[in-house]
Structures are given as structure tokens and as C-alpha cells.
């Protein structure tokens, strides 16, 4: 019995790849920290939260099974519905703006010029400090009443009276913060631009195509896989935005202010779980988010067939 499962002496079969006996063990050993982390810190909590989403759980008492009630209640919860609307608006505004900025700057930085490295680092820097609390605070201070943006706009006759406290301006302010951090997709766009063969442009120029035509006919199609990748990544990220809204728009009592205008999905989810002690409901919300993002991603993949061109594709 043992024999049949015994390890084959290494290197017997001439044609097979040679494998030393310790390799698999060492591989597993080095994989172990990641594997453990994945199981204990990701898969485990996810399964727990899936279970909790079917319960009434207030963090203190034993969870009580209530089936689909949490999911049903969402559709009668005006704050939940508002958080969905606000988040959809945020994604629809922030993602295109950020990608447009990233592509625009990538095109500018693609041509060799003096100090290119410096420019690239400078534009990338804001993304490094990404979702930090301090950055959100700085953002809040520059958009406040009488601060630099307010005074600047006032000087050209657009008196806003500060963006932070106004429901109609607070979400655009968060969108601008997201767009300003375009460094991540910009770097990926730059890499994509490098892959486009220069001969294509030369040939097009010889044929008399202007810059706009060259951009439409060469750059965009050649860049479409990269564009698709960035779009996907940014949409998934935008659905989960939290820090900026949580820090800037604390509003009256627990985020989402002023007047619920920045009640993003995750902000409401967090409030339900950790402020109102409705952890079952918050878990259900988290799973609805997973479903929603999954759905949007699937849709994107479907439509991508129409506009993403891979090398070697036949049109």
C-alpha cells in the first residue's frame, strides 16, 4: 500500500523534467505565508460575512438566522437606495475623467523631451499618497469657504462660497480628487504607447493623416486593450471609494454629508456596521456590492468585443 504511493526515484525517466525532492516542499513553505494570509484573512472572513449576511447580528449577541430579510430590507431603505445612486454618479463621473486625464498626460509625456523623468514622477506622485487621510484633509482645506479654489473662482466671477458644505458641489469635489490621482493608469498608458510601432505613424503621416486622424485611427485602436484594462481597474476601484468621502464629508453625524450628497456605498456600509451595530445588514450590503461590481465587469467584457482589438485579431 505504501509502496504504490511512494515517491518515484528522481530523474529515472529520461524524457521527464528533472525535479529535486525538496522543491515541492520548499515551494509550499515559501507559499505558506501567502496561503495562510489568503485563507485566514480573505477567504475566511468572506465566508463568515456571507453567513452573517443571512443573520441579524449586532456584534454582541449570537447571530440569529433570518434568511433573505437583510437583502429584502435594502429595497425599502431610502438611505441604501441613495447610496446606490450617489455611488453610480461618482463612478460615472470619476472614471472617465480620470482616464481622460491619464491618457492626455501620457500622450504629452510620451515624446522625448528634457526632464521627462522628472515630469513623469511629478505626475505620478499624487497616486503614491493615494487614499491617505492627510491628502483628504488637504483637499478639504483647499475647497473650503475663502480658501484658494473659492477665491480663484471668485476672482473670475464664479462665486461658489466653498465646495465642502454644498450638496451640489461636494461630490464633484471628490471626483476631482480621484481624477487628480491619475498617475496609476497614466503609467500603464505610457507603457501601452511604447508598444505602438512608430512605422504606423510614419506611414499614416506619409498618407497625409493629421494628428487627430492618427490618434483616432492608430493610437486608440492599438491602445484599446490597455484602455480596457484601465477602465476595468478604475471602475472596480471607484465602486469601493471610501477614505476621501469618509474624511472630507463627515457631515452631520457619521459621514455622507452634506445632506446625504456624498453617501457613498462603502460609507453607508461602514456606518451600518460599526455605528449602528447592524453587522448582518452591512454584510449583505457588501455581498450586493460584490454582485454589482461582478455584473458591471461582465457587461464590460461583453461590450469589449466590439471595441477592443488585440494584436493578431482579424477584423
Amino acid at each position: 500500500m505504501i509502496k504504490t504511493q511512494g515517491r518515484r526515484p528522481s530523474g529515472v525517466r529520461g524524457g521527464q523534467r528533472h525535479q529535486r525532492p525538496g522543491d515541492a516542499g520548499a515551494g509550499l513553505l515559501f507559499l505558506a505565508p501567502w496561503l495562510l494570509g489568503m485563507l485566514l484573512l480573505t477567504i475566511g472572513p468572506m465566508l463568515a460575512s456571507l453567513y452573517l449576511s443571512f443573520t441579524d447580528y449586532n456584534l454582541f449577541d449570537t447571530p440569529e438566522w433570518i434568511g433573505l430579510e437583510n437583502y429584502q430590507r435594502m429595497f425599502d431603505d431610502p438611505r441604501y437606495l441613495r447610496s446606490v445612486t450617489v455611488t453610480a454618479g461618482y463612478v460615472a463621473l470619476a472614471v472617465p475623467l480620470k482616464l481622460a486625464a491619464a491618457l492626455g498626460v501620457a500622450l504629452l509625456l510620451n515624446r522625448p523631451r528634457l526632464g521627462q523623468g522628472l515630469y513623469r514622477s511629478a505626475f505620478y506622485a499624487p497616486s503614491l499618497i493615494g487614499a491617505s487621510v492627510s491628502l483628504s484633509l488637504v483637499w478639504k482645506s483647499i475647497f473650503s469657504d475663502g480658501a484658494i479654489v473659492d477665491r480663484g473662482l471668485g476672482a473670475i466671477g464664479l462665486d461658489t462660497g466653498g465646495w465642502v458644505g454644498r450638496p451640489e458641489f461636494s461630490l464633484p469635489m471628490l471626483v476631482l480628487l480621484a481624477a487628480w490621482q491619475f498617475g496609476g493608469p497614466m503609467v500603464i498608458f505610457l507603457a501601452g504607447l511604447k508598444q505602438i510601432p512608430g512605422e504606423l505613424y510614419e506611414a499614416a503621416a506619409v498618407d497625409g493623416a493629421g494628428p487627430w486622424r492618427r490618434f483616432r485611427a492608430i493610437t486608440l485602436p492599438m491602445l484599446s486593450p490597455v484602455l480596457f484594462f484601465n477602465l476595468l481597474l478604475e471602475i472596480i476601484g471607484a465602486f469601493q471609494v471610501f477614505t476621501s468621502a469618509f474624511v472630507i464629508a463627515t457631515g452631520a453625524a457619521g459621514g455622507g454629508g452634506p445632506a446625504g450628497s456624498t453617501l457613498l456605498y462603502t460609507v453607508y456600509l461602514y456606518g451600518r456596521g460599526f455605528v449602528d451595530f447592524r453587522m448582518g445588514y452591512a454584510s449583505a450590503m457588501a455581498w450586493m456590492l460584490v454582485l454589482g461590481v461582478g455584473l458591471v465587469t461582465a457587461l464590460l467584457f461583453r461590450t469589449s468585443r466590439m471595441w477592443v482589438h488585440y494584436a493578431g485579431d482579424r477584423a
Partner: protein
Amino acid sequence: MTSIKRFRTALAALLLAGGLTACGGGDDAGGDVTLRFSWWGNADRAALMQQSIDLFQAAHPTITVTPSFQEFEAYWQKMATETAGGNAPDVLQMDFAYLREYADRNVLLDLKKTGVKVDDLIPAFQGVGEVNGALYGIPTGGNTWCMFYNPKLLTEAGVEEPRTGITWDQYHALLDTVSKKGAGRTYGGSNYRSVIYSFESYLLQAGATLYTGGGKLGFSKQQLIDYWTVGKQYIDDGRFIPSEKVAQIEPASPITKDLIATEFRWDNFFARYASETEAELKIGPVPVTTAGGPTGQYLKPAMLLSASARTDHPDEAAKLISFLINDPQVGRIFGSNRGIPATNAQRDAAVLEGPALAIAEYEEAIAPLLQKAPPAPPKGAGTIEAAFLRIADEISYGRSSVPDAVDTFFTEAEDTLAG
């Protein structure tokens, strides 16, 4: 390239593995007891707390206290998760609004079963912190709802400083005058009608309460409609500072930025406000419905000390709480930082000056006007307090009509109270 990558991965793995094993190494100092003590506050309070803990440890050499603190909001989020994980600290600072929330869920120790010393509490605090006959928290100090005002702004508007006995009608006239003088730069006050404690004092003046003894809402929809309708009217006619301006400066208060002349708050905020502004602020009365009528003010525990029901060291926890409540040296160290002290011994020992003295003098002056404190608020009071502010804010911004907002509030509040 690949070899560097492989090296990096190996290094990361080693570091991670090292981190994991390091977590396992707990060390016990033989026989001695270690108490975990959590509280909310800032660096100032941390220094005072450490001095007090040092004194306690000097008196009880076998007990080690490991303190930790956060800001108020973060404190309650951490407390909720720690408690849920069965890992609550041995001794913790408690808020009146959360007392029943935690007590009803059996996470707090009944301090009557320990040797905690409460006989020196001032009369108004005897029995405060009891829920269903068990003692779950002991107040460290008290505060009352009151008005802060900026005499300079009032004088500039040609208005007299508010005196005890001022009626709501007179106060609203004052708001009108000051706001008109302020011409869009300064205002009479902020929308006090969006704050649940102002509503509570209004109810107490009318002989009603926020919550019934059975943990239901103690007022009618119509009462809240009336209350918020007037609030909306004063937003519209400019007596109150617009919400946009308040949101800009959060978490600071508009009175500390010289934007408004009056604001209602708990009196222990006075010390903080005084430190945040150049303006000279004063503490004033809560207006009354009819001259000589009740003010609806009562002495609320500013914060309480509780112990975890799961602590392994209930007696030591009780010793620490007793020490922090009763020891005169601790009273001297804290002054009014935790509210005006709750025990006679600490009141006598506290040397009060500046804002602290102003609070103490105010509390002494209004002592005859104080009413009996309502029972500890029901489970979910913290959530309801936040909902009140948020929903009233929707009215201020013109995003919701008053009757709709009241309906929303009642739905949310009743849902919360139902558990």
C-alpha cells in the same frame, strides 16, 4: 531580474513568517495582575491619565495598568469590535448614551458585586449608572446643557447679555437682531433645533421626556413637526447660520470662529472651545417657555467608568475605578477635564481656574434649577441622536419637507429601538 524577484519574494516570506511567530510570544510577569484600560480623549487627557495611573500603580505595586485611547468616534468603533471578539478591556470609559446599549447586552460587570466605593458621590449622582438595579458605570464628573455666548458680538449688535429667566421669544428676538447686524458675515446662532439635546430640554420644560421608561420615544410626531417647522423658519429668515457655512469648518464649532454669537452645548465643551478661540466666551442660561418656568436642565454624567463582565480581575478593576473616582490627588490632576468631579473629595481637591472655574461657578449658580436626570437612554440612543442631526440637516438644506423628515425620523428611530 528574475533572481532579484525571487530573492525579494523569499525575503518577504521570511519577514512575514517572523511576524507571525512574534505574535505568539506572550509574557507574564509572575503573579502580578495586568489591567487593560481604554478611554477616549486627546493628548492632554492622556498626560493627566498617565499621572493618575502612575499614582495608582505606586499604591498598588502588584497591579500594572496598560492604557489605550482614541478619539470619541474611533473609540466606539474599536470598542464594538473588541467586545464582539470577546476581547473587551478590563476597565473602560463609558458614555451615558451607550450605557444601556452595553449593559443590556451583558458585556458590563455589575459593580455592586465588587468593592467599589461610591458613597462619596455627590447626591445628584447617587444611583446614576444603574440599569435594572445593577450598577454598570460610575460617573467621573457631570455636565449640564447650557448656552455659550460671545459678549463682544452681542455688544456690537447692541444686545444685552442673556440672563437667567430669558424666554425663548426674547432669545429668538436676540437672534434676529444679531443676524441682521451681522449682514451675512456673523449670525445670532446655529440651528439648535437640529440637536437632540435641545429638543430634550424643550420636552423637559413641557413635562415630557425624550424616551419613556419602557424605552420608546416619549413625544409625538406633531411635537417634532412644530419644533422643526420653527427651525426651518429661522434658517430661512437668516436667524441661524446657514448649514453650508457650518459644514465648511467641521469639526470646529462656528462660535469658536466668531461666526455666531450663541450656541447650545454641554458645559464641559466650554474648556475646549475656550482653547480653540481668541474670543472671550461666557456660559449663559437655557431660555425658558415662561419666565420662572423650568429650564429642563439636569446633571448628566460627562463620562462613566465601567468594567468588562469578562474581566479575569474584577476586584483589581474595581480598585482602579474607585481610585480614579475618589482619590483627591486624581481630582487635583484632572480638574474639570472629565467634567466637574463627581465625588466630594475630588471636588474639594480640584483647583479650578480659567474655563474650568467658569464651568464650576455656572453649575453652582444653576444648581437650584436642575431637574432630576432622566433614566439611562435606551439601546440605540447613539444611533438615534445621529439620525436626528442628519435628518434635521436635510431640512436645513431644503432637501426634505418637515413632515417628510419627521416621518423618516420616526421610522428610523422606531426601527432602531425595536432592535
